[in-house]
């Protein structure tokens, strides 16, 4: 039963992938190949293969617990930090597998940044949040300029320019989240992973973050996990739909350009999920 599921899933995926690959082979920023993630004996993500397009926003959607966060964290080796977790398969970034022996996870995370669901600024000043990230990576330029530039890119400058020396924890939730984005882009990653970055925010702050993503995608590749279908439809260029099989292992059901996935899904389960009849 499980085997059949996998077979049908990959079989259906094959044309999509082939298409994407043919269209923009060099535009592929990150590629997961047969990626599986285990927590101890439990397999949370099963054989996910997909190619992320450069300078596009890719949305990961799917029911709660299907392994979206797990998959996302596997893309910059964040799961290494969880005792008992194990990854199989490959993630190809810049022509090399980030899980290959000899690859330094610190370098992977510096080049593939991450923004979390809950804003997690450092308990330092607004300025130091950004400055620290840059400094530990050996930044030697003008720090004031970098801080201002990062905050401007994160659409936060005007709100915090008078409180750079105040604690970041005194900012509102939405401001904190944009500070985290500013911190992530201050070290110039190539890819930014965002795990439900707007789930704790009100609609206005959410819109600000979405505008910000549209702005950032000119320079960065963005992968975002979201539970909000409208948000996925609004911001993303590509959408991947994940689901759980009966072992609660997450697998990829459908992946393609967002308008196709939302208007003309190839899989019945995608359609049911998007229209809200499921999950």
């Amino acid at each position: 039963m499980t085997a059949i599921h996998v077979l049908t899933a990959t079989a259906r995926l094959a044309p999509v992938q082939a298409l994407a690959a043919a269209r923009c082979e060099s535009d592929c920023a990150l590629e997961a190949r047969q990626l599986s993630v285990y927590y101890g004996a439990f397999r949370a993500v099963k054989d996910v293969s997909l190619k992320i397009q450069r300078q596009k926003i890719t949305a990961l959607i799917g029911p709660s617990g299907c392994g979206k966060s797990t998959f996302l964290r596997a893309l910059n080796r964040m799961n290494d930090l969880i005792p008992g977790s194990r990854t199989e398969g490959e993630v190809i970034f810049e022509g090399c597998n980030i899980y290959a022996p000899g690859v330094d996870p610190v370098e992977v995370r510096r080049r593939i940044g991450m923004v979390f669901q809950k804003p997690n600024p450092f308990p330092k000043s607004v300025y130091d949040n950004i400055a620290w990230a840059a400094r530990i990576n050996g930044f030697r330029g003008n720090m004031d300029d970098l801080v201002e530039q990062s905050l401007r890119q994160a659409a936060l400058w005007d709100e915090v320019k008078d409180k750079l020396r105040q604690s970041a924890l005194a900012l509102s939730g939405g401001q904190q989240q944009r500070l985290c984005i500013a911190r992530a882009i201050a070290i110039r990653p190539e890819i930014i992973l965002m795990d439900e970055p707007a789930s704790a925010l009100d609609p206005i702050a959410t819109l600000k973050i979405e505008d910000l993503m549209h702005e950032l995608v000119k320079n960065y590749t963005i992968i975002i996990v979201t539970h909000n279908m409208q948000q996925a439809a609004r911001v993303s260029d590509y959408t991947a739909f994940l689901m759980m099989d009966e072992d609660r292992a997450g697998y990829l059901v459908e992946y393609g350009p967002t308008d196709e996935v939302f208007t003309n899904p190839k899989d019945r389960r995608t359609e049911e999920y998007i229209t809200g009849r499921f999950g």
Partner: protein
Amino acid sequence: MNTLSAPSAPTVRYLPEGDSFRSHMAARHKKGTLWLTIFQAATLVSILALTALLYNIINQSFGWVAVRNQVEPEALAIEGTPLEELSKEQLITILEAYISKGVMRRLESEKPFSVRSREDVYQLVEERVINPEILRSWPLADSLLRRSAIHQEVVETFPGARLQFRAWINPQFLRAPQSANPAKAGVRTAMLGSLWIVGLTILVAFPVGVGAAIYLEEYAADNPLNRLIQTNINNLAGVPSIIYGMLGLAIFVRGLEPVTSGAIFGLSDPTTANGRTVISASLTLALLILPLIIINAQEAIRAVPRSLREASYAVGATHWQTIWHHVLPSALPGILTGTIFAMSRAMGETAPLVVVGASTFIAHDPTGPFSKFTSLPIQIYQWTARPQDLFRNLAAAAIIVLLVLLLAFNAVAIILRNRYRSKRREG
């Protein structure tokens, strides 16, 4: 019709309502009140116990004493000038008249009289000539309630003695070294000994303990060996302190004698030149509190939120940068609290120091890690073990000193922690 109304008006009642609800409520509240009473009673008992302890200490530290002077000060007046107003030269003649040539010579060689101040000489007269002796003491409660009876008793049993109110804890008590005369004995040696010992203990135990905690929490793989180490540390925290004393005696006093006596540094105290030194005591106490510091620091490190670590890793920080810049600063208040607890424990430990060889009677201050030592709890223990009642008063006063020192430590810890916390909160 019937089938439609059935779900909206259930016939089976799952939850009590009306009167039965109210009586159920009353029973629930009653249970709460019962527990509250028990907790209040428990608190009351501990407050009573604490009050009894304080009463006991205060009662012993103040009260009437019967004092008899060897020579009355009035008898020392020269030509109508009272003793307090005599000049230095006159005081020296008094000394010469009352004490032997030999003692005079010794005093002169300690510090020539020509350079001694008048206050100094006056004090010598007080100590050597007047030489007040405390014959008996009464606790504070008796002093207040049975005043006339005590007066009566003094007149009958101690002719020539005067009744005086004495605070056993006084500036002189803090300044004076140990002495066989209860009127002169002080805690200075013991206090300095305690401070030296605890200071060195923390100097050793804090870095080692925090280092071990970092290793165990951050680096040690989850394998049988490390689990064994962890279990052992947890168990060591419960080992009776006397056993650490035996360990310290075997390792530091005997095994490492050349080091702990200071001999290999050429620093050994000529009067001892063995391993029964401040450093041996400190190392023993450091072993004793190490498990406490490690366990506490581990707890504090474990309590650092995952999100903070992830934030650090996500901007490309290494493991060590994460530990140094985020984990340790955020765990520091907890680590400090644990360390202060451990420090208080070290301050109050007696048994292991007895085994390691605390000196029973030293009258000169410890000057460094290789001095002989005594400590406040040891001093208190010795004073309470003396047959004379007067030493009990000294013990009570020394307990006050110990408690004040402990309270001061804790206060400093709390202030440090709060300052640090608010600084972090404000960024």
